[in-house]
């Protein structure tokens, strides 16, 4: 658990960050909360000759809720999210999910940006961002660009972010209706055995809109459009839930690990989704 030697950079502004990134390309990585990157470096599984600490760069953290649009700076910690009253009002699913990430000590350091940008399929925020249909704002040498969370993830640790780009913020429209983030894990601090993010809108007795995303059940987060569609236009009765679960199971591709064999993971995913739908519908 001793990392290889690396150069430590601590720029004061984004221009400084980008300068190091442009100079060193894929030999440089930015450091946010460090909970994924630093263990990987200590295990010598990540080779990072140039580490760029973002903590002195102004303007990367903070939450704004403005006219139904939520924007969360990349360096905003999970602890900040949990404690933000306006966000809890606008998008309570963010608070519910953040409370299920690791433990308070980790949440004081862990950031939204690190969680979504690292591309770790075990992280909770990527699936949640897909569920919310969030937009990621990236900055690079050529300026800012936006990419949808649903288009961002390519494979485990592989994303649409270029080596010389930095995630600035995530933004999404405050959801309406019912919500639930349901997660099964072996213990505090563990990645999900299966997790589901569900947003449901209700019009009378009918589901008018649904968004469903699953975590740690493939090498990327899985936004299951088909699962959502299975609920829209229904009263979210047993048959509709069965259809949604079946659709979700068609979209995930879990692997066997210490959390259990594939068959169990599929079963757990189904159970977790059923519970998330029930809770979200109850709140809708």
């Amino acid at each position: 658990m001793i990392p290889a030697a690396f150069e430590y950079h601590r720029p004061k502004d984004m221009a400084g960050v980008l300068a190091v990134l442009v100079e060193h390309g894929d030999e440089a990585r930015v450091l946010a909360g460090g909970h994924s990157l630093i263990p990987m470096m200590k295990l010598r599984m990540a080779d990072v000759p140039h580490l760029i600490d973002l903590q002195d760069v102004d303007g990367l953290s903070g939450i704004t809720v403005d006219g139904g649009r939520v924007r969360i700076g990349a360096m905003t910690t999970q602890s900040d999210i949990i404690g933000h009253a306006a966000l809890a009002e606008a998008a309570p699913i963010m608070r519910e999910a953040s409370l299920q990430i690791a433990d308070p000590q980790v949440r004081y350091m862990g950031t939204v940006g690190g969680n979504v940008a690292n591309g770790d399929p075990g992280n909770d925020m990527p699936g949640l961002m897909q569920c919310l249909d969030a937009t990621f704002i990236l900055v690079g040498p050529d300026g800012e660009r936006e990419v949808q969370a649903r288009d961002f993830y390519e494979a485990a640790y592989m994303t649409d972010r270029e080596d010389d780009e930095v995630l600035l913020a995530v933004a999404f429209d405050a959801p309406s209706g019912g919500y639930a983030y349901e997660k099964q894990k072996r213990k505090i601090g563990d990645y999900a055995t299966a997790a589901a993010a569900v947003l449901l809108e209700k019009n009378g007795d009918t589901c008018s809109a649904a968004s469903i995303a699953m975590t740690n059940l493939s090498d990327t987060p899985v936004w299951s459009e088909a699962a959502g569609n299975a609920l829209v236009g229904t009263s979210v009765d047993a048959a509709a839930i069965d259809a949604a679960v079946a659709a979700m199971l068609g979209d995930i591709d879990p692997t066997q690990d210490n959390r259990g064999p594939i068959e169990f993971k599929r079963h757990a995913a189904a159970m977790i989704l059923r519970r998330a739908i029930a809770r979200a519908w109850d709140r809708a």
Partner: protein
Amino acid sequence: MNKELSREERADALSGMGCKRKRVEDARFTQGKGNYVDDIKLPGMLFGDFVRSPYAHARIKSINTDAAMALDGVVAVLTAADLAPLGLHWMPTLAGDKQMVLADGKVLFQGQEVAYVVAKDRYIAADAVELVEVEYEELDVIVDPFASLESDVVLREDLVAEDGSLPDGAHGPRKHHNHIFTWEVGDKETTEQVIGDAEVVAEDMFYYHRTHPCPLETCGCVASMDKVNGKLTLYGTFQAPHAIRTVVSLISGIEEHNIRVISPDIGGGFGNKVGAYPGYVCSVVASIVTGVPVKWVEDRMENLMTTAFARDYWMKGKIAATKEGKITGLWCHTTADHGGFDACADPTKFPAGFMNICTGSYDIPVAYLAVDGVYTNKAPGGVSYRCSFRVTEAVYFIERMIEVLAIELNMDPAELRRINFIKKEQFPYKSALGWEYDSGDYHTAWDKALEAVDYKGLRAEQAQRVEDFKAGKTRSLMGIGLTFFTEIVGAGPVKNCDILGLGMFDSCEIRIHPTGSAIARLGTISQGQGHATTFAQILATEIGLPADSITIEEGDTDTAPYGLGTYGSRSTPVAGAATAMAGRKIRAKAQMIAAYLLEVHDDDVEFDVDRFVVKGAPEKFKTMKEIAFAAYNQAIPGIEPGLEAVSYYDPPNMTYPFGAYVCVMDIDVDTGVTDIRRFYALDDCGTRINPMIIEGQIHGGLTEALAVALGQEIAYDDMGNVKTGTLMDFFLPTAWEVPNYETDHTVTPSPHHPIGAKGVGESPHVGGVPCFSNAVNDAFKAFGLRHTHMPHDHWRIWQTANKLGLHG
């Protein structure tokens, strides 16, 4: 003038036995001021790190250290070839086997030590490890002990004679080249006959999976050879510093007076720090070679993968009973997976530890136990993780066996236990497998426990839950875990207990200072048990000086008397007894001094809390403080000056703590998630020295039991790769996973121990593991489950439910 204190007030002022004295250690631990091995920094100190094998079984074709040696700051790279001329490329194990210090031609488990890099700082050492080039030729890997005994693959060529024959091992003949020993206890013929003729027989196989003690602080040492005076100082995380000194002397040839072993603060041991590891040998050699201190501290992955696992026992059992449930015989055959070397930490004559305590708390007339030790391509170890030698395995076996028998008899398992308990009047009780239980009152403890939890009410609630489940009203089942355990701790009598020929006595030396304070040194070493607190309490009561005026010191072999260390709940039963006995020697001399000062005959004074008083005239007295001063300033005819004593205590018997545990658990059948709703633990550890420390021990031991029962394991894949090498996958519970524990007690003192204490640190682990496991098994009993193996993590519970058809 001060008001004369009452007898009770004087006793309270001592903070002696029975009071909830706050731990004196905690001031430094809670402020981060402890002094652990990795805190030791010596001038010019170098750092060691290991090149480890990525393969579980491979021949080493070549090792090239040139690139590593060329790295700036690298001082040395040791391989077996460098150690061989010193005869140190192999070392003896505590189990009578030998173990490679550095890979000698082949490796036998993943993570095995191949080369030892010494560098000027820790980072350079880690970089150099990557530069050592090792060429391996992979060999067939065996991770299953049953397959190992059938395999043509020879794991230990060093243990096969040139003509292909198998020389005897340390424990007798070997049946196969991968077989280590067979150990048999009891009456095989009669037991098998009783089972053959029995009205009812229950039979099952119980696998107690491989796990690891995983102390918060990993293993490590700092070796410092002073070439001028020829003295070696070895700081380390040693649970038995004196034994380590002797072992180092025997292995290295350095005379024992020239070796000083120091165990500083230790961050938990749980058996992991009993053995001797290659890191110690390499560090000592490196310090001798370089002439400067060398530090080696393993990281978490190295700790989990290489130093001293626990358990890995396959226990096949048969139990015979009458139709009424009276047990008539017990049979057990265990296949023990010891990994690549037999490095179990057991007393010499007990290759499977005290597994023969497996008749448990029950009056079983005849029994037979056989254990076969087997080599596989896994890490060596086999230590007693928070238990006396293999006692957790034994208790798990009998407490699962009882549950399976209850199913066979269609009888309530609480009642089955009750009718088979050894009765109070049967103590001292001689067990069928050779132990003499010192004292017990099992029925009283059991009744108290069952009443406390409203056992009948719980069973009624459970029956209703099963009905609701069958009716589709709930997807949750309820398990009631019962355990009644008897431990065997306090090893042990020198006549049958030794480690490497060293008798398992222990010791205490006391010096009373002129002003009435004292220092006591012991042969044990606290790893968190709170010895500095509790041993001072024993002495306070024995010698009448306040506990706050008594310093307890352990762990420095240059100053402490010889002892065998701390593990197997032996500190209180053995060193605690030595402390009381040394205290009584102090008191005996104090009595003579008091009599002289009071101008009466020795027999005319008696001890009274903190003083000696003239019999019948309590106003005439000398306090222990006054007596202490007199010992240093009075010329007393016939009495030497000073007030000191030393005691080496050879216990006449082991002690046998016991307890009654009940766990109430809800299980989500669909996800396999368990929720411990209630845990009640009644412990009887004999005389209680510090109830607060006992409660802390119970909480800690139960938490480690919960870990083992519900998920903690060292798992291997078929290639011998460790799958659980980090705390992400190796389950270490946090406050979140831990339920509220209710503790309770009865007190049945040990009749042979000077203060009647039996030891408690391991009871909750020994009793807790089967209790949690029984709860899981019990939840599914109504649906036909007899037994399912630990660890009961989510997917395995789901699998159990699935096999029982509970997922529709």
